[in-house]
């Protein structure tokens, strides 16, 4: 293990939405690309889900297209998906079809969306990065529930909430507060409306100079290394649930999106990260997902409990299902695998290892460390001086895409929360919003007109 506080000068965090490990990277072992990865293996019947007396075998996705609908991932559904056996007390991971049937209120198709997995050629950039850097095959979502609590855990180290619904979230502290308190220079690059707009106490950052449009990332990363460069960079895709206008196209990989646009976003971000060889020489880029999104994964999450900090409290008995985690750096092995147990607070542990060595990120994150959750620092075991590999240049195609209509009112907690945050920010901070998110003014007028037609 190398001393990350000495070697790492720039950390880039890119969190996508809602895909499981087996769904995205299970092909690594199945296609014999890297058989040491705990992905999918023969016999595939070992992964059959059970529903109404029938087996539902996993299937290979043949083309990248929009899914039928979103896939369930709220905590009640995750509980069904984990399918704890009353006999062995083990999470059997056989309930994904049952949860899906409950969600769609219909008989699921034999090849239902939650049990599809991608072959390598449909996720060429994720597969390329996993093959060339470090794949984490024991990275679990922090909680067996949905987006808002998991992202709050990821960027605050604690969460007062346990589900996702229409709300503006308030948290006592965040990663931005922590970085400011420790004089860590940071920047956020957002390819659309930032997720952090959902936190009212973060609006001062969202509307500040440290939040920049994603289109600036490449040139900023390519520029000569300077003493005032950001040490932590958070990159945000365009969210499926956030307001959109015009050619703005979601690429956060949230179902029912096709995966191709997220792969293209990943390629562009990696290209930016390796653009300056000097900066790359001390960089760690972390690619991870907020939660599994309702897609199948075969590994039972460890029984590490957590009680939310809000009122009412909610108790979780385990971590959530695995998510794809890739650590990209000159200090991670070429095609290496890290089997250590990680969750999203492993990133916070890592940041503390790099920037405040010897001083834990927070008491809560330290408690999780003591409960068995490791720091990402443990994946940094080697040093490569060769130039970083260039990403595949093949075109990424999406078979079909239904246009989204701005005339439709939002459905679901996340979409409604994003719209609520956008409208409140437009009302309370019009000048700053005009500078930061000018497209949202057009979005508001256009949706208003469309919905009144």
């Amino acid at each position, binding site marked *: 293990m190398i001393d990350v506080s000495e070697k790492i000068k720039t950390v880039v965090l890119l969190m996508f939405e809602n895909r499981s490990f087996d769904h995205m990277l299970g092909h690594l072992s199945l296609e014999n690309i890297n058989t040491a990865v705990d992905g999918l293996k023969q016999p*595939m019947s070992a992964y059959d889900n059970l529903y*109404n007396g029938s087996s539902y075998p996993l299937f290979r996705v043949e083309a990248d297209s929009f899914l039928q609908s979103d896939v369930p991932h709220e905590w009640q559904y995750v509980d069904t998906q984990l399918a704890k*056996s009353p006999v*062995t007390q083990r999470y059997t991971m056989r309930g994904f079809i049952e949860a899906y049937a409950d969600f769609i209120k219909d008989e699921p198709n034999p090849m239902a969306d939650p049990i599809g997995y991608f072959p390598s050629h449909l996720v060429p950039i994720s597969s390329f990065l996993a093959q060339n850097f470090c794949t984490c095959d024991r990275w679990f979502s922090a909680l067996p529930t949905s987006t808002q609590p998991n992202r709050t855990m990821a960027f605050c180290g604690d969460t007062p909430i346990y589900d996702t619904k229409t709300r503006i979230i308030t948290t006592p502290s965040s990663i931005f507060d922590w970085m400011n308190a420790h004089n860590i220079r940071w920047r956020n690059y957002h390819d659309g409306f930032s997720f952090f707009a959902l936190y009212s106490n973060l609006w001062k950052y969202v509307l500040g100079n440290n939040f920049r449009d994603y289109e600036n990332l490449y040139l900023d990363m390519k520029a000569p290394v300077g003493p005032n460069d950001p040490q932590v960079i958070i990159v945000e895709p365009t969210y499926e649930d956030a307001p959109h206008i015009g050619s703005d196209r979601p690429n956060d990989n949230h179902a029912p999106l096709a995966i191709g646009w997220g792969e293209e976003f990943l390629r562009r971000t990696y290209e930016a990260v390796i653009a300056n060889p000097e900066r790359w020489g001390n960089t760690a880029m972390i690619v991870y997902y907020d939660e599994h999104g309702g897609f199948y994964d075969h590994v039972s999450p460890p029984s590490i409990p957590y009680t939310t900090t809000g009122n009412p409290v909610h108790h979780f008995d385990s971590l959530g299902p695995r998510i794809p985690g890739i650590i990209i750096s000159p200090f991670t092995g070429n095609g290496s695998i890290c089997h250590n147990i990680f969750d999203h607070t492993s990133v916070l542990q890592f940041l503390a290892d790099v920037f405040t060595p010897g001083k834990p990120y927070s008491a809560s994150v330290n408690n999780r460390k003591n409960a068995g959750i490791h720091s990402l620092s443990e994946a940094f075991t080697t040093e490569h001086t060769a130039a970083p590999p260039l990403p595949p240049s093949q075109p990424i195609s999406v078979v079909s895409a239904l246009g989204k209509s701005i005339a439709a009112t939002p459905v679901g907690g996340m979409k409604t929360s994003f719209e609520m945050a956008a409208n409140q920010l437009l009302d309370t901070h019009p000048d700053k919003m005009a500078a930061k998110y000018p497209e949202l003014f057009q979005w508001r007028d256009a949706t208003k007109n469309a919905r009144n037609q």
Partner: protein
Amino acid sequence: MIKKLKFRIGTWLLTFFFIFLYSCTPKINSFTVNKRTISANDTLQFNWDVTGHPTLLYHQRNITGPGTPDSAVVRYLEFTLVAQKNGKEAKKMIQVVTQPVNSTDSVVCATGLHGDTLIASCTKDSIRWGNNYRVVTVSSGSRRPLNVSHAGTTTLLDAAGTPSHAFEGTALNGAWRMSSLLTAAEKADMSTAAEKLSLIVTVKYETQ
């Protein structure tokens, strides 16, 4: 009184507004088929209720792979209903599996524990299987003796998987119940106990 009236007017306006919005966009209110598994010369009946202009698309795909019965090619018929209105569309797809007249299926249920006995109960649903599949033989798919109840009959299946005709002629769909004593090894270490029990069922398609 005035406040109440205002509230009612507001509620009505809001209701009309949502009804108006609802009527502007295509929507698939329901799309159902009478069975999801068919055999040769079978007929499917679809019903749908949509807002907009409906079009039913048909696509067939052949899948070979593990988990499929007999590891043979399985034909999936995909029926996609598209509703179009005002330049927008909504769609929903139903997959139907085609099987030969004589085929093999399984009944697989998660286990619970009652004393020192594993119990597994589940119901094969008629939506997926229709009412045309009749049981020919049943054997244990769990490499252990199973006490099986279905359609008012109970029988004991041996661990070797010897086919039994005890349920011949009964419908594949409906409730199945399996039970099996814990083995000595399972009793010693419950983490090794079976989390599911399964039956291998040969079925024959019969036209009603």
